[in-house]
């Protein structure tokens, strides 16, 4: 009898412990507990942050060796005409290093102007996406290795368009390489990549489930136009946005043939 009571009790315990309802309730309670703990910790940390006095902040900065004031470098576009003058006088005085530095400044100054002209020719908004102020960028080494890189970002909600325009020298190699690679891929059954004509230029479009759509259009002797679109619903939607950029205008601003 005692044994029967024990067995009934044991099975009842198992039933209660592993029944789906009890199990899910336990899981729910655990999750609730974890969320509450997480929330409490966040509140606590937030509270600690606001309670810090200025003196404490200064002390912490001193201790960590961290910079906590505003600042930055003054950025000035080089004076091209003046740099050419400096290069001339340095060269005639056999100061080759000085001449080289002045020449680099002059090249950078000219490339910066070219980049700004191209940015000014791009649309301010594309398919409802507005250009992000302060995100415009013109980059150059002052020499041909990287060449000139011009960038602009457009955003709206969760959608983003990133325009990159490369110009001069080594980028041409990349463009050629890309087209060679493209030829190889064109023969495969890769459905996320295809070769297209874009505004009379040979180009390719690519889709990636993580980064979205990207369009690459090599043009002129040494330039490339790259457009990346995130969260566009379809290829057609992305291409409609792409067609709001005019390659020939960019080409003309870059002085490309």
């Amino acid at each position, binding site marked *: 009898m005692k044994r029967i009571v024990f067995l009934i009790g044991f099975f009842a315990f198992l039933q209660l412990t592993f029944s789906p309802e009890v199990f899910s309730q336990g899981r729910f309670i655990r999750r609730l507990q974890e969320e509450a703990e997480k929330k409490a910790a966040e509140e606590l940390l937030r509270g600690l942050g606001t309670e810090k006095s200025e003196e404490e902040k200064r002390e912490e900065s001193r201790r960590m060796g961290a910079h906590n004031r505003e600042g930055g470098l003054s950025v000035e576009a080089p004076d*091209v*005409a003046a740099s*050419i003058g400096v*290069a*001339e006088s340095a*060269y*005639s005085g*056999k100061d*080759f*290093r000085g*001449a*080289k530095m002045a*020449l*680099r400044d*002059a*090249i950078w100054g*000219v*490339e910066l*102007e*070219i980049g700004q*002209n191209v940015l000014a020719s791009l649309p301010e908004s594309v398919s409802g996406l507005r250009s992000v102020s302060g995100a415009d960028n013109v980059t150059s*080494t*002052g*020499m*041909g*290795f*990287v060449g000139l890189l011009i960038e602009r970002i457009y955003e709206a909600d969760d959608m983003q368009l990133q325009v990159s325009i490369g110009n*001069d*020298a*080594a980028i041409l190699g990349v463009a050629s390489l890309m087209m060679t690679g493209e030829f190889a891929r064109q023969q495969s059954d890769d459905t996320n990549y295809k070769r297209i004509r874009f505004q009379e230029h040979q180009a390719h479009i690519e889709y990636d489930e993580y980064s979205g759509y990207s369009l690459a259009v090599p043009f002129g002797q040494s330039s490339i136009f790259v457009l990346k679109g995130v969260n566009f619903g379809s290829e057609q939607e992305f291409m409609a946005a792409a067609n709001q950029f005019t390659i020939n205008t960019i080409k003309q601003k*870059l*002085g*490309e043939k």
Partner: protein
Amino acid sequence: MKKILTIIVYSLFFFFAAPAQEVEKNLNDARSAYSSGDLEAARFALQQAMYELDLAIGREILQLLPERLGYLNYSDADDMVGSVNMGFVGLHLSRTYQNDEKQSAELQIIADSPLLAGINAILALPVIGRDPNQKRIRVDGYRGLLQKSENAQGDVSWDMQIPFGSSLLTVNFHGINEENAIMDMANSIPIQQIARLIQ
């Protein structure tokens, strides 16, 4: 004969004078293109000026180099100066010294290359000292690396690499067995003066 000599002298003059004029001409072209708003033409002229400037520096360096390296004479026709003018490899030049006994030294300088700055770190690695055919050396105050090689026929060759700033001086010696002879030759290269011109 006099006429031939005159032509040769004038040719030499133009050989050295032309690059100087080219730099100035390109700078003038850049100035006028820029003032007329033709930015692409201005950029092209400035890049050309940079290229010509590299060549001018290269020629200056060749003039600094000794005409003899120990018992080896330089061959004027083999002198070479060039510039990739692409930021990652700038000026490069070479000179060959040799004699009739098949002994030679090929000197090369690659200048203005940021990629070479890292070679200093490699030279500081102690692991280099473990190879018996490799040793660290010091020439004209600059640290460098000397590596000895010997082929199956017993011919000895030496590779010397001396980085300075973002430039690299390389000398490959062939047919010379003694290390002392190599070092004496290397010590006649005015690295400090070359570095001052490049850096």
